[in-house]
C-alpha cells in the first residue's frame, strides 16, 4: 500500500468532481434541498386545527374556555354551534377536526365543586392528528378549568406535572431534523461512490488501472477519501441549516459530531463502493444504492417510526442499519449534548459497519478484468 498511489487516485477523483457539477450538486445541494423539503413537509406539529364549539352553558366560564382554546395557533375557530348534532355534521363534513361540547351547567357545577363535563369529539380518520388533537384539547381544557377552579379556590385531587426535556415545546422539527439528516446523508453517500466505480467500469478505464501496480485496497481508499471530505462538508451544511431554519439546537461537541459523521460516512460510502464493485453498471448501481440506503434508513432507523414499537424481527433487522445508530447519535449530540461517554456504543457500531463495508469492497473487488 503506497500513499502516493492513493493520493494520485484521490486527486484524480477530485478533478472529476470539479469537472462535473452534478456530483457537487448531488453531494451538497441535494441534502440541503431534501432537508428543507422534509423539514417543512414532514411535520407532526399540529397547527391551525379547526375546532367547533358547542356552548350549552353560555356562562363567563364557558366563554373564557372557548376564547382561551382559540387564543394560540394550535386551534382555529370553526364556528360556534347551538347543538351537538350540528357540530357533528361539521365534523363529518370535515369543517372541524374536533368539537368541544360544553355542558349546560358547567359554571354551576364548577362553582359547587361538583363533577363537571366537557366533551371532546375528535375526527379519528387521521390517527396521528387525532391523538395529538385530543392531547392538546385535554391539556387546554384542563388548564382552563384548573385556573377557573383556582379562582374558585377549590383544590384539585391530584395534579400531574409532566416535564419534557430537550425538546420542551414538542416541536417535531427538532426531533425530525437529525433523522432527516441521517436519511439524506445515507442516500447521498451511497450514491456518490456507487456511481464513481461503476463509471470506471463502463469507461473501460478499470482495465487500464488493473494493468498498473495499483492494488484493490488503494483503489478503495483513493475513491473513499475525497467523498469522505465532501460528505463531511454536506453533514456540516445540513446541521447548520437545521439549526438556522428549524431551530435545532447544537448542545454537544463538534468533534463528537464529526467523529460520528465520519464513521457513518465511511460505512455508507463503503456500501456504495461494494455496490459498484458488484454491479459494474451505473443503472444497476443506482437502483441498488437507493434500495439499500433509502428504505432501511427511512423505515428502520427510528427516524419516523420508533424502533421500540417495531415487531421483534424488525428490531433485530434495524441493528444492521447504520442510520439507526447515526440517528440516535445525532439526537444525542444535538439535543442532549451527549459526548462519546454516552455515545460510544453508537460510534462502535458505526465503526464496525464501516470496517466491514471496506473489507467486503476490497475482497469483492476483482483482481482481473474477466
Amino acid at each position: 500500500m503506497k500513499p502516493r498511489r492513493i493520493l494520485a487516485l484521490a486527486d484524480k477523483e477530485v478533478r472529476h468532481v470539479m469537472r462535473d457539477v452534478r456530483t457537487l450538486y448531488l453531494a451538497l445541494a441535494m441534502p440541503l434541498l431534501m432537508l428543507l423539503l422534509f423539514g417543512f413537509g414532514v411535520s407532526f406539529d399540529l397547527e391551525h386545527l379547526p375546532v367547533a364549539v358547542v356552548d350549552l352553558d353560555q356562562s363567563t366560564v364557558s366563554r373564557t374556555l372557548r376564547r382561551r382554546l382559540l387564543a394560540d395557533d394550535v386551534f382555529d375557530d370553526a364556528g360556534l354551534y347551538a347543538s351537538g348534532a350540528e357540530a357533528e355534521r361539521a365534523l363529518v363534513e370535515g369543517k372541524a377536526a374536533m368539537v368541544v361540547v360544553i355542558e349546560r351547567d358547567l359554571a354551576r357545577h364548577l362553582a359547587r365543586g361538583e363533577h363537571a363535563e366537557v366533551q371532546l369529539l375528535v375526527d379519528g380518520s387521521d390517527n396521528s392528528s387525532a391523538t395529538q388533537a385530543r392531547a392538546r384539547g385535554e391539556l387546554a381544557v384542563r388548564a382552563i378549568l384548573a385556573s377557573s377552579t383556582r379562582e374558585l379556590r377549590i383544590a384539585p385531587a391530584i395534579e400531574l406535572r409532566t416535564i419534557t426535556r430537550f425538546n420542551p415545546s414538542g416541536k417535531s422539527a427538532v426531533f425530525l431534523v437529525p433523522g432527516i439528516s441521517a436519511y439524506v446523508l445515507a442516500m447521498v453517500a451511497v450514491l456518490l461512490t456507487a456511481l464513481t466505480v461503476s463509471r470506471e467500469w463502463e469507461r473501460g478505464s478499470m482495465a487500464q488501472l488493473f494493468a498498473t501496480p495499483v492494488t484493490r485496497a488503494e483503489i478503495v481508499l483513493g475513491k473513499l477519501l475525497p467523498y469522505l471530505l465532501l460528505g463531511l462538508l454536506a453533514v456540516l451544511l445540513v446541521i447548520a441549516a437545521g439549526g438556522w431554519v428549524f431551530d435545532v439546537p447544537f448542545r454537544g461537541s463538534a468533534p463528537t459530531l464529526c467523529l460520528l459523521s465520519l464513521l457513518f460516512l465511511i460505512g455508507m460510502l463503503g456500501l456504495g463502493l461494494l455496490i459498484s464493485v458488484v454491479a459494474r453498471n451505473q443503472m444497476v448501481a443506482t437502483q441498488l444504492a437507493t434500495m439499500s440506503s433509502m428504505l432501511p434508513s427511512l423505515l428502520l432507523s427510528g427516524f419516523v417510526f420508533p424502533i421500540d414499537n417495531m415487531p421483534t424481527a424488525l428490531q433485530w433487522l434495524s441493528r444492521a442499519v447504520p442510520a439507526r445508530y447515526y440517528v440516535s447519535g445525532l439526537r444525542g449530540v444535538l439535543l442532549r449534548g451527549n459526548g462519546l461517554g454516552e455515545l460510544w456504543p453508537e460510534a462502535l457500531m458505526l465503526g464496525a459497519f464501516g470496517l466491514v463495508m471496506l473489507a467486503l469492497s476490497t475482497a469483492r473487488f476483482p483482481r482481473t478484468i474477466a
Partner: protein
Amino acid sequence: MSHVIEVENLRREFGSFVAVRNVSFHVERGEIFGYLGANGAGKSTTIKMLCGLLAPTGGRARVAGHDIDHAPQRVKASIGYMSQKFSLYLDLDARSNLQFFGGIYGLRGKALRGAIEQVVERTDLGEHLTQTASALPGGIRQRLALACAVMHRPEIVFLDEPTAGVDPVSRRQFWKLIRELAAQGTTVFVTTHYMDEAEYCARIGLMVDGALVALDTPDALKAEYVPGTTVELEGSDLQRVLGAARQLPFVRAADLFGDRLRVRFDAKGTDLARLEEALRRAGAQITRDSQVEASLEEVFLAVVGRKEAA
C-alpha cells in the same frame, strides 16, 4: 536474461471456448514484436494475460523476469499498457491524465514533473496539455495514451491495437514514436490488424483461432509463405483472363488487386514473357508490368489458407 518475455504453452479458456491454445514464444529485449490476427483470434486475450489482467487457465509466462501468475504486481510495475478501448479519462485535460498515471506508477514531485516534461517532448503533446482529452482528435489521443503508458519508462510496453480507427498520417507518426521507443531499448509488444504496420516489426507472430501458427521476421515469413516472385500487370479485361492465368503450369497463384492482376510464379524463375503471351491470347490487353514484393497480407492469406486446408 535475454528474453524479456517468455511464454510457454499459455492457454485461456472461456467456458468451452478456447481463446488462446497453448501458445509458446519469446520476445527479445528492445525488439518490436508484432502480434497479428483477425478479430477474435486471441491477440487481446494473450496481451491481457501477459499484463496480469486475466489469469491463464494453463501454461506459464514470464514478463520482465517475473512470473505472471506468482508476481503480477512486479509484472505490472515493469510494463506499460495501452488498451484497445481508449481508456484515458476523457473529462480530464491531457496534463491531468499524465499526472494521474505518473502518480499511479509512484512518480511524485520533481520526478513526476520531469517525466511529464520528457514524455511530452517525445510525443510532441506540448500544445495540447491543457485541452480536455475528449476534445483531442483521435491521433493525438492515441499519442496521449501512449505517453501515459510509457512515462514511467517501463521495460516493456504492450499496445493493443493502438492505431485502430486512426487516420493514415497519424498512424505513421505513431509508428515513428514506437520505433523511437524501441531504439531507446524499450521492448514493444504490439497487436494490429493493419498489415502495412506489421512491416515495421522486427518479428511477427500470426494468430489464427487462438493458435500461434507462424512466427518469424517479415522477410522470412514472406519467403516461406509467399515464395517465388510476384508481378503485377495493368491493362484491360484482366478479370476475364484470371481463370486462364491460374491454369498456367508455372503460375502458383493469381489474384485481382483492384484493377490489377497479381501473379505469383513458381520459385524457379520468372516466365513473364510466356505469361503475357498466354494472357493476350486469352483476350487481355497488357499495358504495364512490374515486379512487386510480396506483402504481409499475402502471407496472412497464405497462412490462413494453409491452416484451413490442414
